[in-house]
């Protein structure tokens, strides 16, 4: 694929009209995976640890993967937001 095609579409924002969709979506983008990952771990704790059953260990692994995976990509995303704001 041509490198130019991999670039992102440049936009002209209309600041006074509406709040941009990506800004409205950002809290969900960051928060929901962390909540879901926590639910997995909590469910493992309730049914696996308290219920003394190893069948739920997979939920712990998935919960950890979801949380770590998301934090790994959310951190640079949030950092990029700060840098661009300072530039402005």
């Amino acid at each position, binding site marked *: *694929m041509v490198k*130019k*095609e*991999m*670039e*992102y*579409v440049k*936009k*002209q*924002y*209309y*600041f*006074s009209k*509406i*709040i*941009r*969709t*990506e*800004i409205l979506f*950002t809290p*969900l*983008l*960051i928060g*929901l*995976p962390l909540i*879901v*990952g926590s*639910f*997995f771990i*909590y*469910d493992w704790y*309730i*049914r696996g640890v308290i219920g003394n059953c190893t*069948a*739920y260990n*997979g*939920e712990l*692994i*998935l919960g950890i*993967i*979801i949380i770590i*995976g*998301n934090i*790994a*990509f*959310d951190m*640079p*995303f949030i950092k*990029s*937001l700060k*840098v*661009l*704001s300072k*530039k*402005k």
Partner: protein
Amino acid sequence: MVNVADKLKDAKIKINSLDFDAHWYRRAFHAFGASFLIYYLLPDVYLINLLKLWIPPLIVLFVIILEVLRLTGKISSDHFFGLRMYEKKRVGSYVFFAVAIIILLRFFPQQIAIPCILCATLGDPIIGEIRRRYSMNYVYIIGFFVCMYFFIITWFKADVFLIILVSIVGGLGALIGETKKFWWLDDDFMIQMIPAILLLIIWIGIPHLGLSYPDVIISSSFMHW
């Protein structure tokens, strides 16, 4: 007296003055897709099952309608942040991403769907970052092991032979899906569907190999929390 309209306008201008890096936004969006695994944790009760039946297709339908409106010019592409140049006149990759996830959730066993979704949501951005920073050789090696890992952790309850077979086939399938590019079919679809189809073939063959199916990794919750 405080003018509420002016204050709201100021707040909008302040919020909209924030700017995102499209590259990292796209990566975070990919990782966000892992949230859909909550589908398997939801309790097995009538009302929730009804929601599980209808909400995912409605989300996909909404996404397809949005995309049709964008491609026909009825909604400006300005509202679709992080689009690549090649997606300007083509169906956006997020549509492929959503369609593949719903196919996996609805028509594939959990043991196949979970690692394939993880390959797209976490494996794809990891491979993308490796591709940006290192050579393609690293993409093949690290990408394969990352995807392989997702299959191992999902099939850890299976027979050792099955774990090895599934992780190698799944890892290779995901890697082929990610590296093979078509203009009309996005890699977000391929990275999920190629390993899923390969694993489905193995899945059908499991009884013929004299092995038993592995237990599910996520059981429906009783919602006591």
